[in-house]
């Protein structure tokens, strides 16, 4: 695959350009939506269900991870002023060394598979390691029980214009996820073959420009999806390749969509903003540009790719702003609900990578439910 266009010995980005001023203005417009009453509660519950509850510190202990898992499975435990039926979060996100503790902990609560285990890997957070070390990192995390791999791209290569190198590495990690997934045990004990989702962290704070963010998004999406196709050339990707996906989506008679296969997607690939170790982490303009990349990929190919902003999203209000952005950027695309009901407003295609967000959401929900604001010490720590 050609990641960029070769000219004068250098790779150039074939991606659409982004106007930073107007992108920021558009992103700010989402924060002006007024989300009240029913829609606020529904939005907060939704945001809670989309959370990758995260701890990524050098001092993380097995005990801390167990607390994180308990919180993930039942975020409102110990609080009496919350409505029934609060969801579990989508996943816990930890360092590879702690994956097995997550696995044990979730298994003991009977939540294995329901709350996913995401592991950062591939030499997180810098990615400044040899490729074989990064692939081994990935392999071990999957072997220990991870459902999702959050990889970092090689920003050095990207910024130096060695785009093919970046894409090759993403493809290699994707292949590893697929191959290791085949060998891995299913969480329900029904045999081998666990779907592994890959999230590619672009570390947008280091890419600096929105043009770079857009191109890195396009490059990562293409590399992940083409690696999957190359490994399984006869399955889903193939019939659609080279045709206009959006056009086919409008006619339901398309071969591609008639296969029941594509209606039941186990796990989607993601692009993710940040490690959380670099400032700025997720911002709304950056995430908007990534959503646009995902939308254009869908319009071009008919395939769905998820998005995960991570780092810096601490308040319930911010999470609603992001959901508004998702709804208004990707909510009106024809054919998406047929492929995946709810589209990007589901945990399968949208995540928040955050640690403090869960409790702010819980405090807001308890306020909506009981009319009282909870103090910080009233909500449980993860």
């Amino acid at each position: 695959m050609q990641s960029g266009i070769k000219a004068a010995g250098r790779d150039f980005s074939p991606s659409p350009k982004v106007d930073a001023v107007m992108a920021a203005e558009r992103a700010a417009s989402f924060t002006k939506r007024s989300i009240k009453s029913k829609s606020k509660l529904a939005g907060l519950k939704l945001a809670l269900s989309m959370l990758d509850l995260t701890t990524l510190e050098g001092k993380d202990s097995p005990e801390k991870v167990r607390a994180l898992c308990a919180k993930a499975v039942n975020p409102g435990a110990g609080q009496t002023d919350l409505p029934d039926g609060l969801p579990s979060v989508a996943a816990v996100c930890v360092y590879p060394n702690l994956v097995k503790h997550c696995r044990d902990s979730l298994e003991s609560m009977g939540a294995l598979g329901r709350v996913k285990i995401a592991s950062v890997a591939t030499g997180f957070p810098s990615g400044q390691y040899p490729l074989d070390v990064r692939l081994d990192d990935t392999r071990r995390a999957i072997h220990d029980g991870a459902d999702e791999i959050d990889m970092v791209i090689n920003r050095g290569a990207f910024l130096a214009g060695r785009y093919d190198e970046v894409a090759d590495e993403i493809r290699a990690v994707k292949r590893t996820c697929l191959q290791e997934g085949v060998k891995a045990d299913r969480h329900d004990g029904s045999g081998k073959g666990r779907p592994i989702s890959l999230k590619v962290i672009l570390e947008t704070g280091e890419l600096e420009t929105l043009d770079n963010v857009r191109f890195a998004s396009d490059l990562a999406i293409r590399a992940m999806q083409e690696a999957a196709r190359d490994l399984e050339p006869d399955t889903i990707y193939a019939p659609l390749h080279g045709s206009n996906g959006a056009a086919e989506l409008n006619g339901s008679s398309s071969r591609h969509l008639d296969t029941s296969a594509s209606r039941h997607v186990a796990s989607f690939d993601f692009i993710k903003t940040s490690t959380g170790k670099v400032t700025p982490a997720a911002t709304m303009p950056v995430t908007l540009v990534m959503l646009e990349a995902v939308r254009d990929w869908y319009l071009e190919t008919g395939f769905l790719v998820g998005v995960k902003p991570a780092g810096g999203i601490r308040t319930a209000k911010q999470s609603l702003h992001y959901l508004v952005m998702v709804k208004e950027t990707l909510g009106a695309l024809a054919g998406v609900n047929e492929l995946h009901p709810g589209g990007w407003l589901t945990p399968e295609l949208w995540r928040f990578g955050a640690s403090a967000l869960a409790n702010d959401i819980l405090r807001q929900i308890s306020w909506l439910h009981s009319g009282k604001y909870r103090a910080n010490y009233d909500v449980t720590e993860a």
Partner: protein
Amino acid sequence: MASSEGTNGHAAATANAKSDSNRISKLPASQTPGWEYSPAPETGKVTIKPSYGLFIDGKFAEPKGAKRFATINPSTEATLSEVVQASPADVNRAVVAARAALPKWAGLPASERAKFIFRIARRIQERGRELAIIETLDSGKPIKESRDVDIPLVAAHFFYNAGWADKLGFVFQGATSGAKSSGKKSGLPELAPGVRPVGVCGQVIPWNFPLLMAAWKIAPALACGNTVVLKPAETTPLTALVLAEIFEECELPPGVVNIVTGDGVTGRAIVEHPDVDKIAFTGSTEVGKIIAKSVASPRPDGKFKRLTLELGGKSPHIIFEDAAIDQAVEGIISGIYFNQGEVCCAGSRLFVQESILDTVVKKLEIRLASLRTGDPMDKNTDVGAVNSKEQLSRIEHYLKLGQTEGAELRMPGYSGEVSPDNTGSRHGLPSKGFWCRPCFFTGVQPSHTIAREEIFGPVLSVLSFRTPEEAVSRANNTPYGLAAGIWTEKGSKMLSIAKQIKSGVVWCNTYNKFDPASPFGGFKESGFGREGGVQGLKAYVEV
């Protein structure tokens, strides 16, 4: 079959695919296919009096035997209040009051005049929420826009012009040769060496930005020591009347600003009044031409009235293939659907470079489907009600005509058949009130009426071009010349094209950006004279 794992789990679960797909299709998250916004009405309380008099000589008063008419809420057709149809005799009283107030007002120390204007600006900010609500009720524009655009800009215009009041000497340097100028030119005191007020200004403004247009007119006039007789539009008089209350609160000297309500007859009385020194008009080209003719005859004292006109437009919006397309689409949206397209500088003719035409049309369709049309008082409404029944029928006339002439109407969000008889433009909207769904035409030819005449509604005409030269010639092929937009990531192209477009404003990689420091006005049939900026002061001084 491995494909059950969908997009990217391809190889992972070759074994047991069937049971897996069953399990996964039951994921609870998939049960939330929609997340809708609850109604978010602006709930601020405002007082609108059942009737308003005329604001003449610092007092609200109802002339004896006055005729009245109702002003309605265009989103519900409910009557909001009644206002006076000012007669020529009422207009005369207003002009007399303005004339009487002139010497003293013009003779105030400039910094004192500035204080009044600053005070007005602050009071507008303080009463901003109330003004935004009344503006939305009376005009149909979304509260989001009156709150975030109209009213803040109104205050900004007063602040900006207040700052100039005592600095006019810097603006109009070199107005004297150094010899002491005589004080006899207009009988009015000098604001700065060789610079005097024009006198009594008659100002007639439109209904699309009711209070903002009042600010554009009144603020520079006051800063330059003039007095004013202003007529708000027939359908949107209320915020101008609240502004009159603010003048009272700020103790602006009586007669400095007089506000008379009424229809075209009242406007005509202002334009033809022999003791008015200057006419400023914003509105249709049709009326502008009538005013220009009237003003072409000198007054009985042999002097000519001064005139500035800010009229219609059919502004070109040019998208080159090297543009940032997603942001350009935002610019297109803001260019034509802002304020229901009832904007004189609306980017109503879209020129897209051939190679990206399909992409832009597709993205425009997707983006349009996310626009929220409805109750203007809902804080999440993007497109509100059309200002009047008359305006709605004008828009609907063009929706039909465009199709009859061969263009294709696209009405995203409307799933039914579209034909000249059934455009779908009121689909899903209340039966009361004046509504038009945002839409656009493709396959438009430059000769089509919808590509030549101003529609003044949420209707875009999409055309294409192949080369930059063709873009320029098509863009300039219009009797209007108010505004234009250019989208390209290539700076040299942007500058070269901007210079070739004959319009008062050219926005590059943005659209509908307004600032009191930036002059605004037209070429050709879009009028003459500039409002805003240093240039906007010129119309209000004799140099």
